[in-house]
Every structure is written in structure tokens, then in C-alpha cells.
């Protein structure tokens, strides 16, 4: 009998196999980290910095912080990033997803900077453009030390390491389609791309994917706005790191002092010319460093029946922005198809696009779409006589002396009493920490004046009490308002007449879009079904008031007549509308969740209008555009404010 039985030998062998596995999994116990409690603070606004334009810093230099401090072996080289841009044939990417657009329309979608063409802040001078030029791309790669060995498909560096990059985006078919073309384009330049098509919940999760900078090349979209903002995306202090609890959205880890200062300055000045100048500086640096490759605006489509005229789809305004101008050649009703039903007609608590489309018909509680519109990346007065600006004297940005105990707006975006240690921006635009004495700060005052003859649907004139009620309710946290920043930044409101008031902000408040921060208006005279006056109802009850959420008193072109839950809303023309009774007498909004069904209803004449919110950019667009070509309906394609881009992570974990 042998010394060891077969069973024993087997046990030893199993142990021998398992030991290294266990060791690899567990290893030596890691040294325990030191824990420090962090004080949870309010989410801060982008830090206001002194505007000092300095020489461009090398973006490949490590940023502050221990993690993500190792430059990416490939992407930290600007030549490689620029080569990727030159090797990208953006028109071809666009053609892959929007084959139904004409070449001219496709070309109009190409993005050169972070702002769409035609935007008031989009720069054209001094920016670096990257027209498709694979030869230039190849030359840059050669220069960067990535050469193509004889007969090989992928470039290598001197150490024999391949030029291979991971590419992460969502698993949406749209992105997979253009990504496949992008991968081929990169392969033609000798760059190997390894794609990962991740679920959106992971890629955009609050603690996964993009938020943790878990990518090398990452594709997604931003939505352009009338005000370009941008400091949370590109400033040096907005790089998400473990040491700052991943705050910020500068996922590339890009810190170019010139660009960072310019984007912060652009966001902290009210002078339009100065803003254009600073955004221009930013875009020059942004395109030169090529840390994020702008690809193209998405295309969106809208459609309307041939009977309808003056329908005006726009990238930054909802389809009903000019509803009072609509006219029909036959009949008196227009049916609009929407994919969702508004949760409430109360603008304060519901921010969805469908709510705005419906809300514009009744005046949107005196807000956007009624007081002003936002066509073509700009603002226009509507019920206001004009937009108040510093240039036309409607706004005044004066200098005031503040001392300890005065209420001011600090750099963290909070209303605080001035005391030693409080960080503020002084009148010279410098960030200073208050110690004692007096400091000169900027104080903004904006006067809004409305047109004469504005009435509620019941014939009652608009008056200052309506705006006072709007200010009171919207600024009450119990009302359900999501953000109170603007309310908290106001020092006071002074009424000079029933239709004119001046909003004075706290010293230090410098909202770039001050010209649109109007007060809401609610009918203070309205008597509710239970006999109370609307003005006497506490804010906490408003979100359950049918007179506010389901059947608001209209101040807009239409009156909400009925609302069949889950099916449709019917509006009739408001004879008391200040602009005169609209030509279209009845507007019905139908809720059609499925886009194919919506298109079928358009083609069979059940629906007259499908806006970009409903039609979007899906496969159904082609059907609609073909019908438009055949003259059955009117088809519109517009460059969406949503733009695709590829971020390049400059660091590795």
C-alpha cells in the first residue's frame, strides 16, 4: 500500500491549484486607508476666476490629484488626437445615419467646434478645422512615432506597441451605425479601434462609465443651448476625480489654462461682445488641442399637413412658439401628435417638452413662449415690449459697496451674509475672500415691461398682484419647484406699474441670461371651486389644484377646453388674447406613444402636426420625407441642438 492514497493525492493537487487562485484573488491584506469625514456641501457653481489670459499649458501635463495623473500613452500626444480628427470623414458618418438627407443638408450638420454653426457665440476666425485628410493624419502619426510596418494593418511605436484604442459608446443602433464607419476610417489610417457598445444605464450611470472616466475614446452627445454655458464641461476645476468625489463633467481631464479662463470669463460677464470674444478664445484652444472631436448635429424632422401655414420648427424653440400665427386653408381644427402626456399644466413642476408644447397655448404661466421666445439660439420679446439688456438700458449693472452683514451672492452660488472668510467676486471680477471693511461689488437690476392690453381669458387685466403671486409661489420650496437658485439670488422686486417691474439681484449675482428671468404670472383674482381666492391658497396645495394643474386660466392664445386623460387635450381660441383671437379656432393635442402610429395617423389625416419632439430622428423620418417629396405633407428637417462628439481621455487611472 502506498503512502498516499489516490484521494489524498487528488486533495493535494486541488489545493495546489486553488492556492494561487485564492492568492491572486485575495492577496495580502491591503493597508487600511485613513478615513476623513467630508462636510457635504451644496453643489457649487463653476468657480469664478480672475480673467488672466496666459500661455497655453500643455494639456498632457498631469492634473492635480493622484488618480488619473498618468498621461495616456497614446492620447496624451496632441499629434495623435489631431491625426484622429484628420482621419475622421464626418460627412461619411452623417451619410451613414441620415442617408435620406441631401448632400447639402448633410454638410450643414458637420460640427467644427462645440457650438453649432449659426450660434451667436460660434467662432469662425482662428479655429482649427479638420477637414477629412488621411494623408495629413498619417503624417502626424508618423511624426508622433506611430509608424506602419511593411504589410501591417496597425501602426506601432518604437517599442512595437500597437496603436490600439478602446472606443466606448451606447448600444443605441444610431451610434453603432456611425461607429462602424468611424472604426473603418481609423483602420484606414492604421489605428485599431476596439469598440464597446454599453447600455446607456452604465455609460451614463451616476457612478459608472463616463462619470468615472472609464474610457479611452468615448462617444456621446451634448445638447446645445441658446446660452452656451460650458464651464462645467471644460474648466480645469471641473475634472472628475476620486479626490473630488467625481464632481464636474470635464471627462477628458483637459486643463488648458487659457481655455479654462476664457470659458469661465465667458460665463461670468454680462457684456455680449466680451462673451463672444471669450468664447472665441475658448474655441480656438478647444479645436487646437483636439481633446474632444465634434462630429455632427443630429438631424430632426417635423411634419405638418399641407393645409397648415406658418408652422415653424426650430432647434431651440418648441413648435407652438408661434401658434397664434398658424392658419389652416380648410377647416378650423389642427391636431398635434405628442408622444407623452403632460403630467401637469403647471410649468413650475413639470419641465418636459410636451408640457411646454401644451403650456405655450395657454401662456405657460407667463413664462417662456409667452413673455419671450428662443428661436435660432437667441431670445426674442413676445409679450414683453423688448428684452431688457445692458445695451438698451433695460438692465443696469451698477457698483455697490457692501460691508459685513450685508446679504451677498458668494462664489459657491449661495445667498450669504458677508462675513470674514466668505469668498466673493468683486467689481473688478476678482475672486476675493472677505476679511473686513467694505468691498465694491456688481449689482444687477433688470426692468421688465409688458405690452398693453394683456388680459386673462375671463377678461380681467394682467396686474402687478399677478406677478407678486408668481414671485411668492415660485419661490416657496413647498410649491414643488425644483430649483430655487434664481429666487434666492433676488434682493427684491419693485413694481412701477401693473405691467412693469424691476428685479434687483443680490450684489455678486451676474446671470448671463438675466434678460429672460421674468416673474411668473398667476390670476390672483381667480376664485376656486371651493370658494377660496387663488391668492390665498398656500403654495403646498398648488400642485393639487385642478385650477392650476388641469385647467389653468389662460393668458395665451388658447383656452384649455377639455382634457381626456391618456387620450387628448382640446384647446379653443382665446377671444381675449392680447394679440387678437388666433385664426385656427381649435387645437387638439393627441397623445401617441408610438412614433410609427403617429406617422400612420399623419399619413391618414388623423393628425396634422408632428413636431421634432414626436418625430425625432428615427427610421420613420424617411417615410415622412418621402411623403413630403410626393407632396402629401410638408416635411421639415432641422439640425438638432444635440451634437455627437468623441471625447479623448488624456489620462489613465
Amino acid at each position, binding site marked *: 500500500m502506498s503512502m498516499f492514497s489516490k484521494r489524498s493525492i487528488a486533495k493535494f493537487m486541488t489545493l495546489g491549484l486553488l492556492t494561487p487562485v485564492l492568492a491572486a484573488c485575495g492577496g495580502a491584506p491591503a493597508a487600511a486607508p485613513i478615513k476623513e469625514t467630508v462636510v457635504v456641501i451644496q453643489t457649487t457653481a463653476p468657480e469664478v476666476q480672475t480673467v488672466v489670459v496666459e500661455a497655453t499649458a500643455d494639456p498632457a501635463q498631469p492634473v492635480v490629484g493622484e488618480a488619473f495623473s498618468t498621461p495616456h500613452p497614446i492620447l496624451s500626444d496632441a499629434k495623435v488626437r489631431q491625426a484622429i480628427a484628420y482621419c475622421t470623414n464626418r460627412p461619411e458618418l452623417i451619410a451613414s445615419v441620415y442617408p435620406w438627407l441631401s448632400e447639402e443638408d448633410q454638410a450643414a450638420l458637420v460640427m467644427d467646434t462645440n457650438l453649432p454653426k449659426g450660434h451667436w457665440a460660434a467662432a469662425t476666425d482662428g479655429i482649427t478645422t479638420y477637414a477629412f485628410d488621411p494623408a495629413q493624419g498619417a503624417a502626424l502619426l508618423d511624426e508622433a512615432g506611430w509608424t506602419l510596418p511593411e504589410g501591417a494593418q496597425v501602426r506601432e511605436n518604437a517599442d512595437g506597441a500597437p496603436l490600439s484604442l478602446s472606443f466606448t459608446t451606447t448600444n443605441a443602433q444610431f451610434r453603432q451605425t456611425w461607429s462602424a464607419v468611424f472604426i473603418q476610417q481609423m483602420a484606414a489610417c492604421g489605428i485599431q479601434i476596439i469598440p464597446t457598445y454599453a447600455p446607456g444605464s452604465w455609460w451614463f450611470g451616476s457612478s459608472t462609465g463616463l462619470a468615472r472616466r472609464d474610457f479611452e475614446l468615448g462617444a456621446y452627445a451634448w445638447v446645445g443651448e441658446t446660452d452656451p454655458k460650458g464651464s462645467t464641461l471644460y474648466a480645469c476645476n471641473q475634472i472628475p476625480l476620486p479626490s473630488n468625489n467625481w464632481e464636474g463633467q470635464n471627462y477628458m481631464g483637459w486643463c488648458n489654462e487659457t481655455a479654462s479662463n476664457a470659458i469661465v470669463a465667458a460665463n461670468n460677464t454680462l457684456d455680449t461682445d466680451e462673451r463672444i470674444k471669450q468664447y472665441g478664445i475658448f474655441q480656438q484652444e478647444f479645436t487646437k488641442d483636439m481633446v474632444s472631436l465634434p462630429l455632427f448635429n443630429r438631424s430632426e424632422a417635423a411634419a405638418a399637413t399641407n393645409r397648415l401655414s406658418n408652422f415653424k420648427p426650430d432647434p431651440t424653440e418648441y413648435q407652438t412658439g408661434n401658434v397664434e400665427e398658424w392658419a389652416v386653408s380648410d377647416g378650423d381644427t389642427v391636431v398635434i401628435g405628442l408622444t407623452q402626456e403632460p*403630467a401637469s399644466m403647471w410649468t413650475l413642476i413639470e419641465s418636459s417638452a410636451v408640457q411646454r408644447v401644451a403650456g405655450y397655448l395657454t401662456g405657460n404661466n407667463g413664462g417662456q413662449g409667452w413673455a419671450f421666445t428662443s428661436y435660432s439660439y437667441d431670445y426674442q420679446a413676445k409679450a414683453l415690449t423688448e428684452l431688457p439688456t445692458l445695451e438698451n438700458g433695460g438692465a443696469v449693472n451698477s457698483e455697490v459697496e457692501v460691508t459685513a452683514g450685508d446679504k451677498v451672492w458668494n462664489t459657491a452660488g449661495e445667498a450669504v451674509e458677508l462675513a470674514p472668510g466668505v469668498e466673493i467676486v468683486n467689481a473688478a471680477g476678482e475672486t476675493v475672500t472677505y476679511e473686513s471693511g467694505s468691498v465694491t461689488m456688481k449689482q444687477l437690476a433688470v426692468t421688465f415691461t409688458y405690452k398693453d392690453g394683456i388680459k386673462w381669458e375671463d377678461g380681467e387685466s394682467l396686474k402687478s398682484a399677478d406677478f407678486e403671486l408668481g414671485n411668492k409661489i415660485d419661490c416657496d*420650496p413647498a410649491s414643488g419647484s425644483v430649483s430655487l437658485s434664481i429666487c434666492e439670488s433676488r434682493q427684491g422686486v419693485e413694481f412701477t406699474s401693473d405691467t412693469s417691474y424691476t428685479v434687483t439681484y443680490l450684489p455678486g449675482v451676474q446671470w448671463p441670461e438675466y434678460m429672460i428671468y421674468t416673474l411668473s404670472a398667476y390670476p390672483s383674482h381667480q376664485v376656486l371651486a371651493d370658494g377660496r381666492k387663488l391668492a390665498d391658497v398656500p403654495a403646498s396645495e398648488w400642485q393639487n389644484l385642478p385650477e392650476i394643474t388641469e385647467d389653468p386660466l389662460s393668458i395665451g392664445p388658447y383656452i384649455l377646453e377639455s382634457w381626456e*386623460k391618456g*387620450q387628448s387635450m382640446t384647446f379653443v381660441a382665446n377671444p381675449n388674447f392680447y394679440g387678437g383671437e388666433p385664426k385656427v379656432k381649435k387645437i387638439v393635442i393627441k397623445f401617441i406613444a408610438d412614433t410609427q*402610429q403617429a406617422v400612420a395617423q399623419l399619413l*391618414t389625416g388623423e393628425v396634422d402636426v408632428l413636431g421634432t419632439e414626436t418625430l425625432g430622428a428615427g427610421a420613420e423620418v424617411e417615410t415622412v420625407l418621402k411623403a413630403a417629396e410626393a407632396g402629401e405633407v410638408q416635411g421639415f428637417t432641422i439640425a438638432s441642438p444635440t451634437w455627437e462628439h468623441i471625447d479623448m481621455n488624456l489620462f489613465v487611472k
Partner: protein
Amino acid sequence: MTTFLIRRLIQMVLVTIVAAVISYGLLYVQPGGPIDVLLAERQNSGANRINEADIQRVMQRFELDLAVPVRFSRWLIGWPKGPIFGSVGADWVVGCATPGQVRLRYPDGRVEIVEEGCEKTVTLADLEGRKVSGGVVFGDFGESQVMLRGRPVTDLIWSRLPYTLYLMGGSTLLAILLAVPLGVYSAVKQYSRFDYIVTTIAFIGTSVPSFVFGIFFILLFSVLAQRAGLPYLPPGDAVGVRDYTIPLIGMVEAGSFLDRFLRVLMPCGVLTIISLAGWSRFVRGSMLEVLQQDYVRTARAKGVREQVVILKHALRNSLIPFVTLLAGVLVTIFSGALITEAVFNWPGIGRLFVDALSRNDYNVAMAILFINVILLLLGYLITDVLYTIVDPRIRLS
């Protein structure tokens, strides 16, 4: 019978609670949610940016600042509403309004901030004054959090239920009335041309998804028919919003009986075909099995008329397994058809459920799930009782 019913009812209560716990838990562990939606709004959002206080308000509205068991208990039985008996446990911690943050400094110099502990707790005393439903077990499903914000969930369900009952009831009845004779005839005439045709149609019906059927129907009977100048069916909705003209039929008034009838035809047709396909196959298989039994052969040998053999001896026995299939009918009729309702824009419970899930309206989604569980269990109970009727050998005891 009474003992059986009592025992089953007790079991039903337990199963309902377990199902409620699981579905409630699953609903809240899914990725996304109102806070993610809110944080997404924070992107590049300037003056209207979201701060910690805003997040806390939204968490409070969705009760996300309460521990899941406490949240569940408030949803299920509407308790606790505050300190017990008015004062006991006022300082008991039942949730966390602001998670704590800890900065970890690793020996290798790395720094990381992670959430740990709680910076600002929620106590029982904080629950006083907060809105709470009376508890779903007492029939109060609370308020809609998103879709019909601040208004009762039951309002939403009642507004959709008639449409679902109308559509699902009609199609289910039609499917049963057609499936049984088709299945029986197909079995009796096994391998006949009729059998092959029914079998082929059944295979197509069971294998083609409802949305494909739906789109195909809309294209064929609505879009193409209208373009060809033929009588056509409206592509969707339960009721029209304006009058329309159909060739040969003439003017159809929106909201009239004819309008409603024309609009239900296509969704009802699709649902009937799908149910019919599966059920006729089931009845055919069951009937074939029974037809090969000795007692059927004996009956035939005794010279019993074929019609009597099939209808009296075979059919009744072949329907026993079919009855089990019908247990799910009750819940189907209530919950509607998720896909078909969406394709035909039918304002029923199925579409409501899909909307509630996609818009994070937890109270609405949970109400529908909870009612479905109860109806399913009731369906099984009814099936068990029906067994004794269709099969005298079975006793509930």
C-alpha cells in the same frame, strides 16, 4: 369546500405580500430613477442648476430618503406616519436625507471620496406632516408621482380601465369562442387539409410578435387601403377627435358608436389572432389525446353516434387542461396588452403600465402590479373550483 377556500385565501395573502415585496424591491433597484433624471438636468445647466437641497426635496417626494422597509410599510399599510402613539420613537432613524462622505487617503497617496454613513438622518418625527397613502391593502394606492402628479393613482386606473376591459374582454371572448371549435374540428379531422391550414396559421400566430402583426395591419388596412381609395380603418386610438369620411361608409362622426367600433377592430383582431393561435393548438392537442383513450374507443364500439362521442365523451375531458390556461385570463383582461395597446395607441392599462415604468411613476406601476398579482391568484382559485365542475373525479377536499 369552506376549509379549502379559507386555506387558499390565507395562502393568497402570503403570496401577495411576498410578490409585493419582490416587485417593490425590483422596481427600486433598477438603474435610473428620479434622482438620475434630476442629475442629468444638472449638466451644463447654469442658473437653474440643481443643488443638494433640490435633490433632498425630490428624494422626499419619492420617499427615496427612507429605508426600503419603511417605505414599503408606508406604501403597504400606510404606517408609520410619525412617532408611534404620537411620541414613541420620535428620534428613531428611518432613513437618510444626505449620505455622508468619507475621504479615503490610501498609504500609496491615492485619495478617494466615497459615500459612507449618513450626514443628515430622517427620523420618525420627520415623517409627521408628510403625505402618505392609507395603504394599498386598504385600497389606497396613493398619489401619482409623475404622470398625474399629486392626484390619486386610482383616478388614472379608472380612466384607462374601461378601454382595457372593452378591448381585452372582446378579444378574449372572441378567441375562446373560435379556438375551441377550431381546435376540436382540427383534432377530429387530423391531417386533413383543414387541419394543416389551421396548424399553419396557428404557428404563424404564435411565432409572429404582436407588434409586427399590428404594424402590418395598420399598413394594410389603414394606410394602403386609404391611398387606394378603398374603405379603411383608422390606424389607432379608441375614439376620434374629429369627423372623417370613409369610402362606401360615408361620414363617420368622432365619438360615435361607429367610430369606436371601427377603431377597436384592428387591435381586437390582432389580440384575437394571437390568443386564438395558441389556444386552438392547445385544444387540438388535448382533444387528440382524449380521442385516443380507451373509453372513447369503447363508446364508438358500442355504436354511440360520432357527434355524441366527440361532444359528450371527448370534449368535456379535453377541456380540463384548457381550464388551467384560462386562469390567466382574468389578469390579462385587467392588465391589457402592453405592446398591442402601444402600437394602436389604445389608452388602456397596458400602455399606462409601460408609461409608468418609463417615467418612474412608482406608485402607478406598483398599483398595477399589485392588482395583477391579486387577480392572478383569484384566477387560480377560480380555476381550482372550475376543475371540480368539469371533472367530477376531482374534489377540493
